[in-house]
């Protein structure tokens, strides 16, 4: 009597490695993924079925659309409206950063130029070095020509 015979064969105690940890991990993974995954999926299905996406239309005469009305999906519109800044503000923020950096480069170049000129001409407030007093100089070694 062997294992896989059609009449009931010998009962076997099959020795294999434990799958306890594997099944526990997979069960926990499924649980935690579905814990928030299923409500999110239901919400998105609700939005797609009952609210639906926007339709493309020509901009009516004399009407300036709000910045969130350039998106199609209702959730993207909501995010653009309540969570993100308007793109005009983003643009202005980028331009402000560029402006600050441009002014910084300009000032740094001017400082280098001023430093160069003051060092060269010597008539500015920088590059003054302390020199010892001329009365302290001892000229006795050069006083006679035979030293």
């Amino acid at each position, binding site marked *: 009597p062997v294992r896989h015979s059609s009449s009931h064969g010998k009962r076997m105690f099959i020795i294999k490695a434990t799958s306890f940890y594997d099944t526990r991990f997979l069960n926990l993974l499924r649980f935690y993924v579905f814990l928030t995954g299923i409500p999110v999926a239901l919400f998105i299905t609700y939005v797609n*079925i*009952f*609210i*639906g996406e*926007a*339709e*493309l*239309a*020509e*901009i009516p005469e004399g009407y300036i*659309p709000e910045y969130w*009305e*350039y*998106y*199609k999906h*209702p959730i993207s*519109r909501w995010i653009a409206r309540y969570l993100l800044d308007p793109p005009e503000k983003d643009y202005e923020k*980028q*331009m402000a950063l*560029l*402006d600050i*950096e*441009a002014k910084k480069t*300009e000032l740094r170049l001017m400082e280098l130029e001023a430093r160069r000129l003051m060092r060269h001409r010597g008539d500015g407030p920088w590059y003054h070095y302390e020199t010892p007093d001329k009365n302290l100089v001892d000229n006795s070694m050069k006083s006679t020509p035979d030293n």
Partner: protein
Amino acid sequence: MPEDRDWEAYKVPPTRTPVSERITSVPNPVTIFQTVFNYVIDAPVTFVREWIERQQAKNKFYYYHQKFRRVPDLSECLEGDYLCFFEAEAQWRRDRMVDQEIVEIVRERLGACKQREGPNQFQNCAKEMEQLAQVTKAYQAPSTFLLDGDLGVHGNARTCLMKQKHRMIEERKAQANQSQ
């Protein structure tokens, strides 16, 4: 649900399948397939889709394509005016994306024409080929300041302007050589 494109913009020529005469009395299995498909799959799906559309039609809202204002070009910016550079660069990139899409659409039309015509594509698709040649030439060799193709992925407005300047210098040199 993605919508079909605008069929009026580029009309496909009419099909030329011949009308066939019935020879046998055996019913055409294709019609049986079609009716089965219609009742089993098509009708329920259409019903659900129309129910969904009725729910969505209660509060409609629209989205628009953004129109950007034209700002001064890179050639009209003073040197060192980084804000002007930034705006001209943004405008140049938008224009480049538009031109890439134009080239892509013309290329698709040529491909569709070739697929349709089959063996007589070289005669019947001359118009589409001409259009594609013109559009790619305009895209690669900028005559206006906007289109460009040879700059690659890292091209920006400044490299395009430099390329145009070099091209004009060479043209002037060639003219001077010719006139000598």
